[in-house]
């Protein structure tokens, strides 16, 4: 301890690169967004006017923004739930495989290495109303698939593409979690006469809860922020904004529409929302988590 107290500056020096990155790529832009959200500015920055909270009022009262909020909640909940439950199922199954386990695992982890935009294009091809294999198959079953007009189908498409992407990430964590559960616990339960279903829900699932909680937070953040590429390549936010999420709307207003004030206000609101959501998760969901 005494050694370190003489070197007050040294730890800070070691921390500096990380702090600099956070400051430059997070705090500075966040501060800029906060500042700009109180101004109306032309695209070229030739003039700006302080408008107080009117950007915020415009955003919060906009029907399109409210729709984007609803879309985001529906989309995020579906993606998190879908990606986690499928990954858990696959991990449980893969955990039992004795022969060729490595091969299965590699195949299941693979989708994570596919770039979101590429994954989006892939699903778009499968579901293309005139060329897609899946849409043709659905057509022969009497289901008319056209995500370019049907908002519900478009939402389903982006959910499927995002779930497929995120599933692999969850799979790795669930598999690692499963493998760290002591086999003796499950064996003694089996000797006591507990069936596989019961063993899973009373032993495995509670012991996995730290992993599940971690993944819940990560998946929510993924669905909120990292699905931009998938949405942009598959639906472009359409039809009629049915798949426009909050992040996608910020892009549309800020980059396409060059409305810096309005999109800054949206991103500040989004930051607050996600902060609140994470807080709620830590306060209420984490209580039920059993660390061991």
């Amino acid at each position, binding site marked *: 301890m005494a050694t370190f107290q003489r070197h007050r500056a040294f730890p800070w020096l070691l921390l500096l690169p990380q702090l600099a990155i956070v400051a430059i790529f997070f705090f500075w832009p966040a501060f800029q967004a906060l500042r700009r959200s109180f101004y109306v500015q032309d695209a070229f920055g030739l003039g700006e006017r302080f408008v107080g909270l009117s950007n915020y009022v415009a955003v919060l009262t906009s029907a399109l923004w409210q729709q984007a909020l609803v879309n985001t909640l529906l989309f995020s909940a579906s993606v998190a739930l879908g990606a986690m439950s499928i990954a858990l199922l696959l991990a449980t199954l893969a955990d039992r495989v004795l022969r060729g386990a490595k091969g299965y695992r590699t195949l299941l982890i693979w989708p994570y290495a596919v770039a979101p935009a590429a994954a989006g294009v892939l699903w778009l091809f499968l579901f293309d109303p005139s*060329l897609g294999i899946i849409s043709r198959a659905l057509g022969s079953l009497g289901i008319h698939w056209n995500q370019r*007009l049907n908002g519900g189908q478009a939402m389903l498409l982006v959910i499927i593409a995002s779930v497929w992407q995120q599933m692999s990430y969850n799979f790795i964590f669930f598999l690692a979690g499963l493998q760290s559960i002591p086999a003796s616990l499950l064996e003694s339960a089996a000797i006591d006469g507990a069936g596989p279903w019961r063993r899973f829900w009373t032993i495995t699932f509670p012991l996995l809860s730290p992993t599940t909680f971690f993944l819940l937070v990560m998946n929510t953040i993924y669905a909120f922020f990292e699905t931009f590429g998938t949405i942009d390549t598959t639906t472009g936010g359409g039809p*009629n904004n049915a798949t426009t999420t909050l992040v996608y709307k910020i892009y549309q207003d800020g980059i396409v*529409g060059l*409305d810096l004030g*309005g999109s800054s206000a949206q991103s500040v609101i989004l930051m607050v929302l996600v902060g609140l959501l994470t807080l709620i998760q830590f306060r209420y969901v984490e209580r039920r988590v059993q660390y061991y």
Partner: protein
Amino acid sequence: MHNVTRVLASTAMVSGLALSTMPAMAATEVVWWHAMEGSLGEKVNEIADNFNASQSDFVVKPVYQGTYIENMTATISAFRAGNPPAISQIYEVGTATMMNAEGAIYPVYQLMADSDQPFDPNNYIAAVTGYYSTPDGEMLSMPFNSSTPVVYYNRDIFQEAGLDPDNPPTSWPELAAAGQQIVDSGAAACGFTTTWPSWIQLENLTARHNIPFASDANGFGGPSARLEFQQSDAVIQHIQNLVDWQQSGVFNYGGRMDQASPQFFTQDCAMLMASSASYAAVRDNSANFDFGVAPLPYYPEVIDPPANSIIGGASLWVMQGHSDAVYDGVAAFFHYLSSPQVQADWHQFTGYLPITEAAYELTREQGFYADNPGTDVALEQLTGGQTGEYSRGIRLGNMPQIREAIEGELEAALNGDKSAEQAMQDAAARGNQLLERFEQSVN
């Protein structure tokens, strides 16, 4: 927001890098940012190389910056960082944003007057330059790649359905009847589809019928313009027709931008409404059938003969912040670019329209139109009709997002979520909010 700022910062950084790695040369460098990819991008490089070889004072450096949107964002952030390119290619819907950025742009008419290059605006095709000129006819940017929508039709399907492939429909009622006959005869599953729904089914529809799209002469009068298309019965009727035709199979909505084209290539749809610049793509994808080109239809009960259609595409804007030597180079390059040989070559290679009468004449003399039937339809449609007050073009701020609003509401109407009239009212209401915000930001 940090995502957006990060994109801006990184594009600025990358472009700065591109500039700094260029070798130092005695000749003055003129940097040209553009959004032409693939073979179009190679053509851009070829034009610059030929210009550079033709003289030794200036070197034009084309730099590909991604999509139109990406290039515009990159140009704006570079300007904000004090390091803009000399020339930037901006899509037609960005025109209002550019022309309202006084202090950021150097109007082309002024640039040409300040330089000693010969320049006569009357040599240019008015229907093309009008889109990029002030109401007094002063050219603000140099038209580069302009196109106008036409109808591509499958001659084989026409034959099979008992229609005359040499006499394609010219009016909307004829087109609908032909579409119905095609569907009824089983020659194809759908009559027609459209790319760029807002551009073709609304912007060009209003222009061709000389119906106001927006007040203040479609926005040419200034940023206080508001949308007016929703007040026209003819427009509402057309949208209602599209909804009805979607039901009957005469029409099949194929998505935004040019997502609908595959439906024509796979012969699911007998007709495709698309840009004249899609000619090469249609030719390359129609190995299994013969196709023809027809002008965009009109409603004879609304207007006869129709007014001209309007253009889409992009133009070249000159940015402030460079030395006189650079601007001399830009002027010399624009002079070169407007020459009949360069224009005729560009027009024939890409399907984009020539910007001067001389290039059109040269192309005709070279026998290009005779060898490639249908390639002159676009230019005839653009220059043949009577130019009306509302067929010069559309100049509205936030136009990319207004298009999104229109297309979104059109999708809602086609899906049966709301009536045609309600959809257009909602589209206009959303668009007018965007126009109000734009007016606020430039004042």
